[in-house]
């Protein structure tokens, strides 16, 4: 009920709080992809078919760590119906140091080529070792059993603390830790050390009257998208290729594939499908280069679709961690120092998001003395992929747990304690830059004043709060508006639509042009349709895409005014664009009847030919977003089962272009956080093999596991965006881990320092506490 009221409340807000009257921005318009999705017409990754299409399948390592002595595909190739086999030999090696930033992660092509197809060693169970293309799924499956691989099984390590130990098996034999001075002489599994902060930690702790220090451990989790990785590749004999795939960034996928296959980027065209969830996990390539290599060899199209088992064994995950946090405060509640050490599993290749985690860990707090150190550690697990606000939920889980304990020790309300120390505009962030306009305090105050926080708990229940932070990003973005002869426009963007971005980009376009929303048809173009586009990630699309479409709309308006000026024989300065039509302006106002977009479009051949609005930008000035979550839990003391009974997300959106989809992001992040906090974890056997590679035993929450997630949209506009947008997609997953852990502590008086808080762990802790 509360949730429904909130939606209504937001609707009223939408109309009344805006100073400038907006027609589309801030409304809950129907999404342009909605009908296709509910009728099943929408095409996802596995839904594209071509004549003569082959089926590709991957042979995966059964070992967590093994040297590959030899691969013999001859028997598979001899099987009737098998058209191609690829192995490490089909991918050129990449030079060391071929590194490129992509979204929120760094791409190292030497590692990437080894991840998509094992070379010297198989580094995790499920690591691709060979692939076949055959006339049917059955033949391809049979062919896999005929490929002979000779392995020398090596000792493995999957725990981050063990991997950092002196005698741990080395995943990469020559890895020297970066970021250490002096550099270590001996190789280890520690790829990198990073440090952020300012002031002097020990000075800070010497000023504290209360200091709390805790160690935390979390397990890797999977992004849990419903749609498995899928693609269709078609290479022609002349070296040109097409690829259809489910991806968060088809331009980025194109670049990766072209590099891995050694071809010109422009010879490959990539079309992104509708996407059944990505959450960061579809910012990288797995099957795509393999399907292309198979297609190149077979000269036939090759379709590849992962099974759920493969998704779990070979894609994602987000890292597991081992963390220490120490925070000190005065008796009055002023934090004097914060210190965190974060050790993150990178998987088999360097590149965990530990730098981002270290940067975000203390971001909500205005601290004079702060330090966070991160270690990026290799283990025999799949290479981690981005997962919503990569790294941030983990560091903030540790910090926000200790903050909660401090509040309790100081007998302060946890929100008041946070308010005493919260960052505001003009403050130096814990990781460096000075904050511009931000909504940290506003979300804390809105949470404090919310009916949820004011409502007394039921008996035996507990309540927790936590605050979270994410930067958000901008980046390269292009948009085109093609004016049709009837005055309607096709909006072409290059960012796959994951969270309703076609709707919000079309709304900003219609708003800027001053036309009806249904005159804008938004489409995601293929990689040949537009200039470069960074992927959909970093909560960037409504921000950067918004700048691009508003720019394209302004470009279109300028040309429309030019055509009107030409028609009226007026100087351009005497024409203005108001409410979707050109009007004579200044001294000439009213001298001619206004010309609508449709009228200009009808005669565009006469006035100079086709009219196309374009804008390409490397968008800067993304607005960071803070969120505060409030959660109530009930704990069954006899079974250890934690139930979430009420949940409220408060977050700064800058400006909610489409409040419904902003709320959807808030709710989705909270739900994923609930799964992460309570049940999600990989279970490994002693050989380093995953035992729960499926949704039955890898437990994401089902609908009945979560209450209606209430939302409050705070709007502190981002001045760098035409409508004030900040990104909203990632911050919602940052606070839940700590908020739920704090709620469990509040209910039981037991501080959990390990995730997930699954029933057996909770019951054991209750029994231990007696």
């Amino acid at each position, binding site marked *: 009920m509360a949730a429904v009221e909130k939606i209504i409340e937001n609707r009223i807000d939408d109309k009344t709080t805006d100073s400038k009257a907006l027609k589309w921005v801030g409304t809950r318009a129907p999404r342009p992809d909605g009908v296709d999705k509910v009728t099943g017409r929408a095409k996802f990754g596995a839904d594209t078919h071509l004549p003569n299409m082959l089926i590709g399948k991957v042979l995966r390592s059964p070992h967590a760590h093994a040297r590959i002595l030899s691969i013999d595909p001859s028997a598979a190739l001899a099987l009737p119906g098998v058209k191609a086999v690829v192995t490490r030999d089909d991918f050129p090696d990449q030079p060391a140091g071929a590194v490129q930033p992509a979204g929120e992660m760094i791409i190292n092509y030497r590692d990437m080529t080894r991840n998509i197809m094992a070379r010297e060693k198989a580094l995790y169970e499920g690591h691709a070792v060979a692939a076949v293309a055959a006339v049917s799924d059955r033949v391809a499956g049979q062919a896999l059993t005929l490929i002979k691989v000779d392995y020398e099984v090596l000792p493995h390590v999957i725990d981050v603390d063990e991997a950092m130990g002196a005698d741990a098996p080395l995943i990469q034999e020559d890895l020297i830790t970066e970021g250490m001075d002096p550099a270590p002489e001996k190789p280890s599994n520690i790829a990198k050390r990073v440090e952020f902060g300012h002031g002097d930690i020990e000075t800070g702790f010497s000023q504290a009257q209360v200091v709390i220090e805790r160690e935390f451990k979390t397990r890797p989790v999977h992004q849990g998208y419903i749609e498995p990785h899928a693609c269709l590749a078609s290479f022609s004999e002349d070296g040109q290729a097409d690829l259809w795939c489910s991806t968060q960034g088809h331009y980025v996928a194109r670049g990766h594939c072209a590099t891995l296959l050694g071809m010109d980027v422009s010879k490959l065209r990539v079309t992104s499908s509708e996407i059944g969830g990505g959450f960061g996990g579809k910012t990288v390539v797995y099957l795509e280069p393999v399907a292309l290599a198979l297609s190149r060899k077979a000269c036939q199209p090759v379709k590849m679709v992962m099974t759920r088992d493969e998704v779990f064994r070979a894609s994602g995950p987000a890292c597991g961690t081992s963390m220490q946090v120490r925070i000190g405060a005065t008796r009055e509640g002023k934090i004097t120092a914060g210190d965190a050490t974060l050790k993150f599993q990178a998987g088999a290749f360097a590149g965990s998001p530990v730098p981002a985690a270290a940067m975000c860990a203390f971001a909500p707090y205005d601290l004079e003395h702060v330090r966070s150190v991160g270690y990026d550690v290799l283990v025999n697990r799949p290479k981690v992929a981005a997962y919503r606000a990569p790294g941030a939920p983990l560091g903030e889980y540790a910090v926000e747990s200790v903050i909660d304990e401090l509040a309790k020790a100081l007998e302060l309300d946890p929100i008041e304690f946070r308010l005493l120390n919260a960052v505001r505009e003009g403050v130096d962030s814990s990781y460096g830059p000075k904050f511009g306009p931000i909504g940290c305090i506003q979300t804390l105050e809105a949470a404090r004043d919310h009916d949820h926080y004011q409502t007394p708990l039921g008996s035996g229940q507990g309540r927790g709060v936590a605050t979270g932070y994410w930067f958000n990003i901008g980046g390269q973005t292009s948009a085109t508006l093609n004016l049709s002869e009837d005055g309607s426009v096709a909006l072409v963007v290059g960012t796959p639509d994951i969270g309703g971005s076609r709707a919000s980009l079309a709304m900003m376009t219609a708003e800027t042009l001053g036309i009806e929303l249904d005159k804008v048809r938004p489409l995601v173009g293929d990689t040949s349709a537009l200039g470069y586009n960074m992927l959909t990630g970093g909560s960037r699309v409504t921000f950067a895409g918004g700048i691009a479409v508003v720019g394209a709309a302004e470009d279109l308006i300028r040309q429309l005014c030019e055509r009107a000026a030409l028609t009226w024989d007026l100087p351009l300065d005497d024409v203005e664009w108001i409410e979707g039509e050109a009007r004579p302006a200044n001294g000439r106002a009213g001298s001619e009847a206004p010309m609508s977009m449709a009228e200009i479009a009808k005669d565009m051949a006469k006035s100079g030919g086709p009219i196309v609005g374009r804008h390409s930008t490397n968008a800067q000035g993304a607005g960071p977003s803070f969120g505060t979550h409030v959660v109530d839990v009930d704990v069954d003391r*006899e*079974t250890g*089962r934690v139930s979430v009974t009420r949940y409220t997300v408060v977050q700064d959106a800058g400006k909610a272009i489409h409040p419904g989809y902003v709320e959807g992001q808030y709710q989705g992040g909270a739900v994923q956080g609930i799964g992460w906090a309570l049940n999600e974890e990989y279970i490994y056997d002693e050989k380093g093999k995953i035992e729960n590679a499926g949704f039955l*035993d890898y*437990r994401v929450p*089902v609908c*009945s596991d979560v209450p209606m997630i209430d939302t409050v949209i705070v709007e502190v506009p981002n001045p760098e965006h035409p409508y004030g947008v900040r990104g909203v997609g990632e911050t919602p997953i940052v606070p839940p881990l700590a908020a739920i852990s704090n709620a469990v502590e509040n209910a039981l008086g037991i501080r959990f320092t390990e995730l997930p808080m*699954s029933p*057996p762990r909770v*019951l054991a802790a209750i029994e231990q506490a007696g």
Partner: protein
Amino acid sequence: MRYEVPETVDAAVALLAAANGSARILAGGTDLLVQLRAGLVEPDVVVDIKKISQTRQVTAQDGGFRVGAAVTGAELDEHPDLKKNWPGVVEAAELIGSTQVQGRATMGGNLCNASPAADSVPALIAAAATCQIAGPDGERTVPVESICTGPGKTILGTGEFVVSLILPARPPHSGDAYLRFIPRTEMDIAVVGVGVSLTLDGAGQCIAARVGLGAVAATALLVTEAADALVGTAVDEGAVEKMQQAVRAACRPIDDKRGTIAYRTQVSGVLAGRACRIALERAGEH
């Protein structure tokens, strides 16, 4: 692979016997189709029993019920008399899967799939249900607790299948209940499942009890010691506690991804206590 849809028990038996062990029965298919797709089973013949009318009916028999082996969970739920007499059995069957799965899943399939964690089985055991089995040598009747011999294994011989489940007549002052523990709220597999059935005399003394226990051993168990702890008592807290101890003592679980030995053992007692209290309340109402 051949797909056959016999319309009589005899025709089904003939098809099964002829296939000589390489046939599978298809009821709702919610286990079988998953296993086929995963390549776990590769039968030559699939015999769909849903066109055999006996397997699809719930009929009154000797004061109790004869439930066709292929009656779905959703249909059980819509049978008011069955639900009134055996609420625990019906609620156990209803726990299987989701609304979609309920439209297909059957108790016959749940039992014959022989998963130690099958939800309806402990409730059927507590109910003293029996199976009517047809085969090349005619019919036989076997108690539910004797059907499974281990994970995926049953006593059913070549050519045999379960035609119906027989639920006995219910004396006055009887009640049953089934509870399972899963980490989620639905769409999950039981870590522990407990079915309890009680009959009281007019004065509230327990005169008969049965306790079925799932997911804590290779097959679902009938725990007579637990029942003995209740019979002759007023099912007071002391008796319930003894029953819980007997349940825990009967557990022979494995440590696996779904739960540790300690956890399963502890929670089996907790659920047994809770199920017993529900059964007692229901017995008091009838």
